């Protein structure tokens, strides 16, 4: 399931829904991304999250389909917010449900890694000094590249 929205989400309710009515789920792995208060050396006052409506949903659905191809998932969920966020706000929830924990963990990490390098979102940090578009991190490319072989990792 994919959702792109301005509104916050209820992490507990979303995770509970992922395994509701499915007694084959043994583990749910989840990641919640939050806005930190630092932008480099400066204090972040706000973060603007821009995205490409239409392509975002398609990119996330493609990533989710790839995870389901690689791991035996009972369910998965990506919720990504856009718009203006403040330090401490939730940005993203990625969650996976599987019979076994290792599949859930790996698929969750895969989804986050690929989302960070493939889904068309852009962060703009606002500080007292003005605003600045966040640069893509080469570490994120490295993380994402781990999964390029098409194999589930160890």
């Amino acid at each position, binding site marked *: 399931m994919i959702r792109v929205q301005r509104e916050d989400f209820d992490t507990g309710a979303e995770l509970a829904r992922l395994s509701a009515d499915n007694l084959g789920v043994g583990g749910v792995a989840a990641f919640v*991304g939050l806005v930190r208060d630092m932008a480099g050396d400066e204090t972040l006052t706000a973060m603007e*999250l821009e995205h*490409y409506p239409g392509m975002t949903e398609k990119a996330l659905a493609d990533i989710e389909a790839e995870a389901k191809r690689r791991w035996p998932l009972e369910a998965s969920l990506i919720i990504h917010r856009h718009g203006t966020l403040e330090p401490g706000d939730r940005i993203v929830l990625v969650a996976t449900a599987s019979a076994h924990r290792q599949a859930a963990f790996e698929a969750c990490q895969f989804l986050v890694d690929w*989302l*960070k390098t493939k889904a*068309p*979102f852009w962060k703009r940090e606002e500080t007292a000094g003005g605003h600045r578009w966040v*640069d893509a991190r080469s570490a994120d490319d490295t993380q994402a590249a781990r999964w390029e072989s098409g194999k589930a990792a160890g």
Partner: protein
Amino acid sequence: MKIVYFAWLREKTGCAEEEVSPPESVTDVRGLVEWLCSRGDGYAEAFADLGPVRVAVNLEYVKLDQAVGPDDEVAFFPPVTGG
């Protein structure tokens, strides 16, 4: 042809979205970028270095040699930073 710009490409071109009718000599993304650059300083600045520019045609990532035509939606944006 519909063109959309995001993040600093939107800011530099001063445009979020536009309908354009490039000449018939424009057949791929690279040709489209060259033609767009001729339209003003903001465009020339936005596309001065294509290294950090990503392109999608009809919502799919493509390379500069991707063919484009009148019915396509072409998007230009920097490397993504979501999550």
